[in-house]
């Protein structure tokens, strides 16, 4: 909660929630509902205090929707709002007070709106008591109003959440975590709706068992789901970290190219965000960027480090590295489109690249993006034979090559992304004592093409 807009937004949501609750109080709340309400509040609190992180730090997921929707059926709009409001007390992590109050207000509002929807649509309950533990005779008629309430709850919840993320961004600046947010958004929506359905089952259990017994039984599958989601996120982080570490290992072969794949990967991700690529594709592209040069391992070290002009054979060996990379990563199942990106990242739009000599749109999109990020990083890093160029010079090189080496659309997107997000140039490496671990020329460098001995 940094920007002024974010504060305003929070204040707005909180006062709306407060106003609603105050207005609802006089309409009354039968005292017999208090025990149910407290059990539901406890259930909500337990769910809300143990969220599973989804993908990134930004969005976490907790199964509290089930408790909210059960409250809608069992204790009505006002009760559902009171249940949601306990999110203020959430025991999850070190949340700032502002964040807590906002969460409480958000859940109170969503619960209230869902409750009003439910009460307005249902025709099953006797007049004057439009909520409470459901009777067998109400089914299946109760399904429709409940489904409407669930949709309203999920939409209100995510709408308010989206608003605060949006306001925090302040319309400008890096969109922290936006990518991960989007990648998990559909999953979040679906799982929220799924667990909303559990709310109705919980309400039904309420009529045959004691409330707290029902709550405990329902907690078991909720926690198992949460456990699996947490495990998934953990595995995903471990996976990314391992991949990065292994890529770094590959780079240790050459002192000057350290961090190269990481930066290319980040550059590719910037383009993906700029052109609004779908989240799962963007993720695959990020990995492809990281792995694009892995095939260099298949090129003999003495060729990579040769100072003088290359023979045709040596040049052919270098041209083979995208294929070698493909060989290594081919078995990684999820990377289908990424494979094409790795294989063709040295194609040129004018058709003079390698290994296939593709031109224009024949080159896969991933390859065109990686090609641009790859070249830009090389230009703006130090090499043994020259100093790093500035970012402006790098941009100028990209513009020069647009239409011949690079896809102009991707170049434009990359430059726009640079303007928005900036670029972290690597620190110039201190020359290693062991002069053997340096490369005298770089196959990636468009400003200093490889010299090949012409054999007529």
């Amino acid at each position, binding site marked *: 909660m940094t920007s002024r807009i974010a504060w305003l937004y929070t204040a707005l949501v909180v006062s709306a929630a407060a106003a609603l609750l105050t207005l609802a109080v006089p309409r009354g709340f039968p005292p017999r509902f208090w025990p149910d309400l407290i059990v539901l509040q406890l259930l909500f609190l337990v769910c809300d205090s143990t969220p599973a992180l989804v993908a990134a730090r930004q969005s976490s997921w907790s199964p509290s929707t089930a408790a909210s929707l059960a409250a809608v059926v069992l204790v009505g709009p006002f009760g559902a709002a009171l249940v949601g409001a306990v999110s203020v007390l959430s025991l999850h992590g070190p949340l700032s007070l502002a964040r807590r109050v906002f969460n409480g207000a958000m859940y109170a509002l969503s619960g209230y709106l869902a409750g009003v929807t439910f009460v307005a649509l249902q025709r099953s309950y006797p007049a004057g008591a439009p909520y409470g533990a459901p009777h067998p005779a109400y089914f299946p008629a109760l399904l429709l109003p409940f489904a409407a309430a669930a949709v309203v709850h999920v939409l209100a919840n995510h709408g308010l959440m989206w608003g605060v993320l949006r306001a925090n961004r302040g319309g400008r600046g890096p969109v922290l975590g936006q990518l991960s947010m989007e990648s998990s958004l559909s999953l979040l929506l679906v799982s929220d709706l799924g667990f909303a*359905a*559990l709310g109705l089952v919980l309400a039904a259990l309420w009529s045959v068992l004691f409330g707290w017994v029902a709550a405990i039984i329902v907690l078991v599958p909720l926690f198992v789901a949460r456990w699996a989601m947490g495990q998934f996120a953990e595995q995903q982080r471990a996976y990314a970290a391992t991949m990065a570490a292994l890529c770094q290992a590959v780079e240790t072969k050459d002192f000057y190219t350290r961090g190269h794949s990481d930066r290319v990967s980040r550059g590719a991700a910037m383009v993906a965000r700029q052109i609004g690529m779908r989240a799962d594709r963007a993720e695959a592209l990020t990995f492809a960027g990281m792995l694009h040069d892995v095939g260099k391992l298949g090129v003999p070290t003495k060729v990579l480090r040769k100072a003088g002009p290359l023979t045709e054979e040596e040049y052919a060996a270098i041209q083979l590295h995208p294929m070698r990379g493909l060989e290594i990563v081919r078995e990684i199942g999820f990377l289908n489109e990424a494979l094409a990106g790795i294989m063709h990242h040295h194609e040129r739009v004018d058709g003079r690249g390698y290994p296939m000599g593709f031109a224009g749109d024949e080159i896969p999109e991933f390859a065109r993006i990686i090609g641009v990020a790859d070249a830009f990083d090389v230009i703006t890093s130090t090499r043994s034979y020259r100093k790093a160029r500035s970012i402006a010079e790098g941009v100028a090189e990209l513009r020069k090559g647009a239409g011949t080496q690079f896809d102009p659309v991707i170049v434009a997107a990359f430059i726009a992304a640079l303007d928005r997000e900036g670029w972290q140039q690597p620190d110039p490496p201190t020359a290693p004592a062991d002069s053997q671990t340096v490369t005298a020329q770089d196959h990636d460098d468009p400003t200093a093409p490889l010299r090949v001995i012409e054999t007529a």
Partner: protein
Amino acid sequence: MTTHQSTDRQPLDRPADRWSSWQAMDSGRLLLLAVSGMLAVAAFASLAVTTQGLPVMPAIAFGLFIAFGELLRLALPGGREAAPIAMAGAMGYALLLGLKDQPSQHLALQVVAVAAIGMTIGALPHVAAGRPFGITGICTRLVTVACVAFIFRPLASRPIIYQMRHWWIALSVMIVLVVFGWLIETLISALIRADDVGARFGVAVRDEIRVQWPLGAAVGSSAVITVFAAEVMGLTELAVFMGPLLVTQIAFRRYAGIRATYLQTVRSLASVTEVGGYVESGHSRRVARLAVAVGRELGMPEPDLLDLEYAALMHDIGQLSLLDPIPGGATVLVSIADQNRIAELGAEVIRQAGVLDGVAELVRCQNWPSRGAEPPPPVGSRIIRAANAFDDMVGGSTDRDRTAAALERLRMDTAVEYDPRVVQALTEVAGRRPAGRL
């Protein structure tokens, strides 16, 4: 919990799904098939004699639920397969008390019949898509459900159970039975798995419990929830409850999926040493397979086996820091100081990941002698050391004389260099492997 160790071996479920190869089946699996076959025959026979007392709509609804769950089978870590939704449905049907105040009085054999039909229907699309029928899993689930049904159905007709005035009695009985059912399923799975992968039964039971408890808890509580909610909602409950069950299943699927991808990626990236000409082709994978087999022989639990597999796959990663590849990649031929340096470099690379410190430790100690080193190297490192040396000498060859000579050479070094227990296990494993494959 090991992920898909079997992906490039025969899938574990295969042998049982080919009826033609039934002679090759082990006794545990045959017994399971025989028992469930008899159960199914008895169930269908009783259905043919009389369908009295079996309300049609609930039977169809639960049958569909079970079939749908069987369709959505779930791959679990370690090449296991589960059908949690089918299991929840079948258990729910076995424990069903009533639908909207209408007591359910179906019999145990009728539960078995509905479950068998549902599971078979749900498995057919798998067969159509070229995947295995999964007879072992289906039989395991069927026997489990039958055990629970035979105990509970007679009880369900007693007023003290089905009258909701005494809901807590019914609830307690159900919880006990759900746990009992889970134990039976776990024991059967462990028995089959011990036969399949050559693990010890005790270790297999522990592994099975570790992998299965989250799903077991979810399935059991779902069955209980189904029973009590159906008292109020009737069959509507099955449709509504499918929502949360599906979400839970999706979460599990994603989890199992990323674990599989993870292992696949480590495998692929570990092969960079081969493409770079640092080691002989296929070396890392052969060492990994051998190491896992030896580890299993020594009774290592699955989480340790997974670490061992990762470490074995990446044991040569330190060579990437070498200027020029060691000829043939045979680290066994280089000076011990160099070997340790390479191992340290490799461990450093792995430690960078921040999540594989155990693996890094195994890689770091991979060249330490089993005796005399202080502290003594972990078992995993000793296994990798022996497997690595074995593969450096034998390679992809399956020549018996060559294998015997290599084992002999390892055995001569057991005083200091190699752990005698590891070499013993290695001998067993190498003796078992059929010509051409491990």
